[in-house]
């Protein structure tokens, strides 16, 4: 559209003048903004007040968003314009003229001449209050948005989830209320389902919700024992296990005070349970160590922990062996095994067969994968490298079966029956050098071969079960029976697998101690070099630990917490 704009003005000396300008545009904009085609001043004029467009063959004026215009004296928001019409905007007059040749429209603009100083100033927007900014509107919007997005929507989603309805993942749910990330395992198991642990609103996560998954976890104190105390019901899982602190925080609160709160005042609250008071891990604050050993039938050692039943296995009356707790320094273990650590570690008496060097701890003891326990020691792997079960120098390749006393007796009888009846064997075979502790046997016998063989076999069986052979390592009971097969009973070995159940100790971490390594590290705690009796426990007491460790209060010590050694949830 090509429009002619005639601006009518009065000069300072009140002479009327006009200035014509030409506008080429699709639409002619009118307003106070400086980039409008027709700029009008005054505080009632909006930056973009109105716009004039071609409409068919004529013109059309329309007000912008709520602005006020009058056409020929009538207020309107939009109107067709014809020559002669007058548009008024805040005291400014815009007259539509007949368009001259070459133009699509023509206007005469007469601006208000009586703009006062104050009006002049108010024509400019100089305050932020005059812009779109609004504290009140923003505040109201946020006041609605925050509770809606942060509370109402997550609450609705939470209720829908509880009723089994699945909501799209992009909809905010109650994870927006989470106090912090879950530990990785719980996050995998539970995902975004808060209700897995938080079943009821305004109620702590309940133990029964934990036990839905952790159904094998045992109580710290059995209900039967708890009933003997004045401790009341056990604490919530959440007392020690605090979630929503991953990845930095641990799920377990390991503070000693959680344990000491009960254990310090043992006598007051533990009722008839005998529990030593513990106030810390320092001299005088923690009782000496008690090892669990198996008590043979009929003895009355310190504390009975209930009978063990190993089921099957053919051991004679295993249920009569009971685990008892004994002080590590003064207690004894009746394992039915004879073994002298002192002798075996004496390099002048015992050497390895492979390189003739003194035995080391690792020659018999193999640390298990957990770093705490050791693989059981077996005759076949640990002992038989040195200790053969031969019984006759003339037949050094013949060895008695280990662990089967009756088979061993039969083998001895069979061997001598053949030796005394088979003429080719009578004096055959090389005679090995007699061992110093083996008895001198008169091999001459002039009786019938079977008589000689039987006598010789009884002699050898008696020798094996009472002087050398089985009896060297095992306790053998002589019941005086006339039947040689029934007379000797090898007592079963009763070693407990773990002296300290429900406690942890990592041997691997202690394989290097200050300047001690290897066997020296082992022997610093276990006095094997000087212990010749297998009944001695050789376990260190608390004093040994306190040389390097202490609780959180100790200075220059490696800190140990209760939970560093003790398991809260009983495993036995």
């Amino acid at each position: 559209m090509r429009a002619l704009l005639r601006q009518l003005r009065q000069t300072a000396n009140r002479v009327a003048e006009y200035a014509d300008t030409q506008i080429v545009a699709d639409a002619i904009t009118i307003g106070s903004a400086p980039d409008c085609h027709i700029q009008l001043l005054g505080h009632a004029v909006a930056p973009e007040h109105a716009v004039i467009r071609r409409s068919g063959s004529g013109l059309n004026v329309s007000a912008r968003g709520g602005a006020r215009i009058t056409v020929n004296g009538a207020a309107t928001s939009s109107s067709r314009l014809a020559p002669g019409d007058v548009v008024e905007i805040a005291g400014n007059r815009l007259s539509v003229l007949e368009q001259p040749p070459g133009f699509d429209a023509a206007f005469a603009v007469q601006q208000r001449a009586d703009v006062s100083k104050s009006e002049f100033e108010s024509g400019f927007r100089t305050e932020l209050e005059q812009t779109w900014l609004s504290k009140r509107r923003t505040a109201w919007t946020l006041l609605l948005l925050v509770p809606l997005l942060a509370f109402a929507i997550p609450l609705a989603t939470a209720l829908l989830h509880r009723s089994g309805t699945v909501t799209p993942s992009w909809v905010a749910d109650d994870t927006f209320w989470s106090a912090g990330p879950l530990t990785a395992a719980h996050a995998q198991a539970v995902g975004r389902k808060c209700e897995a642990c938080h079943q009821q609103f305004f109620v702590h996560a309940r133990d029964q919700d934990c036990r839905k998954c952790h159904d094998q976890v045992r109580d710290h104190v059995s209900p039967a024992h708890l009933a003997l105390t004045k401790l009341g019901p056990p604490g919530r899982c959440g007392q020690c296990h605090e979630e929503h602190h991953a990845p930095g925080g641990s799920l377990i609160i390991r503070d000693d005070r959680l344990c000491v709160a009960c254990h310090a005042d043992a006598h007051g609250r533990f009722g008839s349970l005998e529990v030593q008071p513990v106030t810390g891990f320092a001299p005088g604050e923690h009782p000496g160590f008690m090892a669990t050993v198996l008590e043979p039938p009929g003895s009355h050692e310190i504390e009975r922990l209930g009978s063990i039943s190993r089921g099957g296995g053919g051991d004679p009356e295993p249920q009569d062996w009971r685990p008892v707790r004994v002080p590590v320094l003064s207690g004894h273990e009746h394992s039915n095994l004879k073994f002298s650590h002192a002798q075996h570690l004496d390099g002048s008496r015992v050497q390895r067969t492979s390189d003739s060097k003194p035995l080391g701890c690792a020659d018999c003891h193999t640390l298990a994968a957990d770093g705490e326990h050791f693989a059981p020691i077996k005759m076949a792997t640990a002992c038989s490298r040195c200790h053969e079960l031969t019984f006759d120098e003339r037949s050094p390749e013949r060895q008695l079966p280990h662990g089967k006393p009756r088979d061993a007796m039969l083998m001895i009888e069979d061997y001598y029956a053949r030796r005394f009846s088979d003429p080719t064997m009578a004096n055959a075979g090389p005679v090995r050098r007699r061992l110093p502790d083996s008895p001198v046997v008169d091999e001459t016998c002039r009786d019938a071969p079977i008589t000689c063989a039987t006598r010789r076999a009884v002699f050898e069986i008696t020798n094996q079960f009472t002087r050398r052979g089985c009896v060297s390592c095992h306790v053998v009971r002589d019941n005086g029976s006339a039947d040689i097969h029934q007379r000797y009973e090898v007592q079963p070995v009763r070693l407990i697998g773990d002296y300290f159940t429900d406690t942890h100790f990592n041997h691997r971490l202690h394989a290097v101690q200050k300047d001690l390594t290897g066997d020296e590290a082992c022997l610093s705690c276990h006095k094997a070099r000087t212990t010749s009796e297998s009944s001695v426990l050789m376990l260190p007491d608390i004093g040994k630990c306190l040389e390097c460790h202490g609780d959180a209060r100790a200075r220059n010590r490696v800190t140990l917490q209760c939970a560093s050694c003790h398991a809260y949830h009983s495993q036995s």
Partner: protein
Amino acid sequence: MIHQSLLRYRGGRYLWWAVGLSLGSVALYATQGGLQRHNGGTWQGYTLGTVGALLIAWLALLGIRKRSYSSTLGTVQGWASAHVYLGTALLVVATLHCSAEFGWNVHTLAYVLMAAVIVSGFVGLYVYFSNPSVISENRSGGSRGALFAELFDLDARARELADRCDPDTGLAVKSSIERTVLGGGVLKQLFALDDSRLMLAEAAAGQGTRLVSNTDQQTAIDWVAKRLPRAEKRAEAELLQALVGVLCRRQMILRRLRRDIRLNGWLRAWLYIHVPLTIALLAALLVHIVVTFIYW
């Protein structure tokens, strides 16, 4: 000066309150650990949270107190002083309350809103310190109205002179006056943006006009100044000389006004963050408290 007495109110009494509150909070926080893990869920955490929530509610009350002209509950100046110092201490209290554990959750939302409110408050404090003296200096001790009055007179004087010039100069000068931009939208006020224009006649007669940029009125001044050497008569030269003088004076007044609008704008702009976010914070705080007990 109001801003100085704000911080030195009664010898900085509330500074010591804030320091005491912060140190007390740190001491309380330090008693956590081990049995009581550092977070809002311990009794220390709940205590710090309660103190923080009460503090937020009280700080927000300044908005009501300063409008209660009849209130005798302390002076507004005293309230404002306490508002500044205790508001700063709130940052310490709240950070210790949450043990600086943050995540994408409603609790951190409340913290972020609180931090935004406090930081916007710092901005406000900064402009209250720095702007008034600059504003006063810029106005040469006068008021904004005085500057506008002078501009009004200069406009009239420039129009009068322009009427006596050639039509093209007249159009350029008068359109430059009409299309002078002062203030306007948010950005124009806060950054003193100037997209003033003026209308120039096309070089070829009868080819209409065009709008060109007249930022800082420089185009208008240049236009008249260029006419000066070409003045054929002494009277015309004197006229143009006077016009340039008026336009330059006008340029200076406009600069001062723009600066005044900008400085005053910043003096209030922070409140457009501070106040609505305070309301949002109160809402988020309430949600935070309710939700904490829904899943505790």
